[in-house]
């Protein structure tokens, strides 16, 4: 296993888990106080957290990509593979949370400048989520196995 996987992967993942759960509790405070002008600093603080965990997720994602070609039995794959569905859930939950917050802020008349910053972060999450679309899709995986087998047979 490489050093990054060994020493940094799990601390990164732990940070993402922890900040992700903090975001959930902080957005509920924003929802309750959306009509008060003092909610703005809270929105900004949550936005900083969304950006922060995105930067951590991108690093974890890079490790995942690096180890995708390792054999199924390799020790690194045993570490990396189980985390992929969890990471998809975190990306998806963050995007949904941010999307619903933005919709609420629009209705509440929050500054369009603040909303535009949040929309940029949201689009980064959505873009990343597209790469995880087939995670957990066993039917698509079986089809891809079959397609790969047909391609390799046609070469023989």
């Amino acid at each position, binding site marked *: 296993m490489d050093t990054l996987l060994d020493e940094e992967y799990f601390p990164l993942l732990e940070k993402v888990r922890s900040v992700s759960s903090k975001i959930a509790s902080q957005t509920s405070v924003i929802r309750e106080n959306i009509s008060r002008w003092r909610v703005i600093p809270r929105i900004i603080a949550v936005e900083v957290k969304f950006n922060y965990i995105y930067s951590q997720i991108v690093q974890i994602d890079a490790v995942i990509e690096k180890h995708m070609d390792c054999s199924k039995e390799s020790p690194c794959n045993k570490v990396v593979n189980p985390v992929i569905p969890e990471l998809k859930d975190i990306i998806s939950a963050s995007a949904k949370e941010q999307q619903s917050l933005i919709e609420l802020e629009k209705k509440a008349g929050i500054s369009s400048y603040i909303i535009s910053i949040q929309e940029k972060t949201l689009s980064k999450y959505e873009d990343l989520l597209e790469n995880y679309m087939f995670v957990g899709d066993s039917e698509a995986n079986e089809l891809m196995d079959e397609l*790969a087998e047909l391609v390799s047979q046609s070469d023989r």
Partner: protein
Amino acid sequence: MHLSSSFRRQLDKITKKYPKDKESVNALLKDISNLPFSKGDRERGFREHHVRKVRVGFPQHKISKRDGARLCYFVQRDPQVVVFVSIYLKSEYKDEKKEQSYVRQKMIEIIKESKSN
């Protein structure tokens, strides 16, 4: 560059809708056939299989890559073979489940076609 009839039908539908960008889409397909690992992002859900997704814009029609089409293809490494699986407009598949279902359907069509050849 070999395109399955399933993929060709999808491609024709899109190039009919955005005719001014037909040449750039064909050039992209050629680029992918030559250098498949240089374009787009690798899908994370297919384990060791190398499946990539490219965002296709239609600049002549003022459609950005983000709002344009998605092109999915499978790459076998050695010997290198590229199989174009699907190309579709993102705007038609905003719901992730519908998008997944569409790509799966195209996989089935390509598998059937490969078997019959």
